[in-house]
């Protein structure tokens, strides 16, 4: 009783499977032959959107690169100016030190002289 029914069901399923694979091929061919112009239009639009998006990204990156270059140039200029300033300060300090050293020598000589004068007066 159950045998023929199961057989029948499996036959129906196989028939559906065959219709599905055949129908898929037919539908594919139909889509290609009848809807080609619509699909091509979609492809063109997708491509133009992709190209447009890529263009925008490139422009954005170029602008950012330009900005980064300007910023880097400014930084290096500022660095050079600061370096020159520091060098000038160092030179100035060096001069100051040598002047003070000379003053010190003079002061020491003066002290020595005064000391010997006082010793002479005491004796």
């Amino acid at each position, binding site marked *: 009783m159950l045998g023929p029914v199961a057989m029948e069901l499996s036959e129906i399923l196989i028939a559906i499977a065959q219709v599905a694979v055949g129908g*898929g091929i037919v539908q594919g061919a139909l889509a*290609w032959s009848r809807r080609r112009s619509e699909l091509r239009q979609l492809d063109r639009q997708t491509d133009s959107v992709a190209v447009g998006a890529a263009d925008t990204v490139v422009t954005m990156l170029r602008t950012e690169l330009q900005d980064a270059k300007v910023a880097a140039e400014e930084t290096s200029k500022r660095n050079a100016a600061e370096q020159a300033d520091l060098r000038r300060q160092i030179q100035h300090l060096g001069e100051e030190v040598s002047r003070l050293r000379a003053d010190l020598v003079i002061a020491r000589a003066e002290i020595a002289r005064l000391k010997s004068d006082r010793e002479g007066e005491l004796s």
Partner: protein
Amino acid sequence: MTLWRDRLYANPFGTMAAVAAIVLGILGAVLGDDVSRGMANSLANSADVVAHLWGVAFAVGGALKLIGLYRHRTTMEIPGLWVMFGGYSFYSLTVTTGLQVHGLAAGTISAALAVGCLLKVRLIMRQARWVAGAGGDGTV
């Protein structure tokens, strides 16, 4: 290289469904009904010939889908998806019929992929109709 990778990351499931169709299709085309016990059981005498034909169609469908997807050509992708739908639903029905409860796992997965192919076809066709309906000349 990066474009290729972008497409893969944008369509991981579509890519893998197509790759699976190509691999299974080639196996079917080469091995015939040895590729699936369920198909051999359910198709009985004509199984070998049908399995070879199914394999060829399935592999061609997967290749069309893959090329269409990666080259942005829906004129190839849509036929590929339809043939893949046929291939997956054929496999799903034959494996379930041939192995019954033992074929449910493979049958469910391939039925889901067949439904996915149909949904993708609908999605693409709706977009195409929308673009055509907007009367655009291909620009936004």
